């Protein structure tokens, strides 16, 4: 006696035979444009590889650019800061020096005037004028 499974298999075989005989075989009645598969594989592989690598390259370039810009900015900022740090005290020193030189000059003048007596001074002026 046939099992349920065997009965199903038999019915499937019968149905398949009917379909085969009526539809002249199991050929898929669809076609594709000429060289479709060759073109598809080539196009897809180039699309799939090229944009990916291009994108990666672009991304990489962008990252490098960004890092480069950031680095440049940091260097410039650091340089400006250093300059400011260096210039401000120098400027202050120069100002101080100017003041102190004036002071020195004034002090030296008064020293000379105090130390040299009037007669010597008059002789000196006369001598210089005659020359």
């Amino acid at each position, binding site marked *: 006696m046939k099992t349920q499974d065997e009965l199903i298999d038999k019915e*499937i075989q019968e149905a398949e035979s009917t*379909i085969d005989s009526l*539809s*002249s075989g199991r050929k*898929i*009645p669809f*076609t594709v444009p000429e060289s479709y598969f060759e073109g*598809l594989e080539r196009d897809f*592989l180039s699309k*799939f590889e090229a944009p990916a690598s291009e994108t990666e390259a672009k991304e990489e370039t962008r990252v490098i650019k960004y890092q480069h810009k950031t680095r440049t900015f940091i260097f410039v900022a650091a340089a400006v800061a250093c300059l400011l740090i260096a210039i401000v005290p120098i400027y202050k020193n120069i100002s101080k020096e100017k003041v102190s030189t004036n002071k020195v000059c004034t002090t030296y003048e008064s020293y000379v005037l105090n130390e040299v007596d009037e007669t010597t001074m008059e002789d000196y002026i006369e001598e210089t004028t005659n020359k």
Partner: protein
Amino acid sequence: MKEDVDWATLPKEKRKAAFGNVVKTYTRPLYWAIRKIVIVHDDANDVLQNTLMRAWNGIDEFRGESQFYSWLYRIAINESLTFLQKQKAAQNISIDDEESFLSEKLEADDFFDGDKAQKALQKAILSLPEKQRIVFNMRYYDETKYEDLEKILGTSVGALKASYHIAAKKVAYILKEELE
């Protein structure tokens, strides 16, 4: 073929080469699986490209639990069904009009190269419910084993066999009515 490729540990550059081999190996069978569902060549072309891109983008999801081709076929079938659903939604096609919608696609396809009997067979297949249609095409044309169908469709062998049994009988009956 590529089932032994361990995608998870494969370096990125080697992955591309391996996937290139996948494209070369599976393009044709995937195309025909898709074409039998969406019918029209241009649609099949779109769905195939979506399938390959989706497979590439989701390659990390493939953990080798199933065979690689089963995973690819599953993506292809899902993409095909999603594509049809979107088309039907865009054209306001109801479930009742689904058969005529697909038959019209068949009539409009420039790359149909069959005679009257083959067209009748295709129309009979298009009258089947979605899942039966997929099972019928994969069993009748490709002679895919039930065990492999189980892996692709996630349905038990018993249910698949029952599905094919009903589908084959229905197609045979319609063809007889149409051609005899």
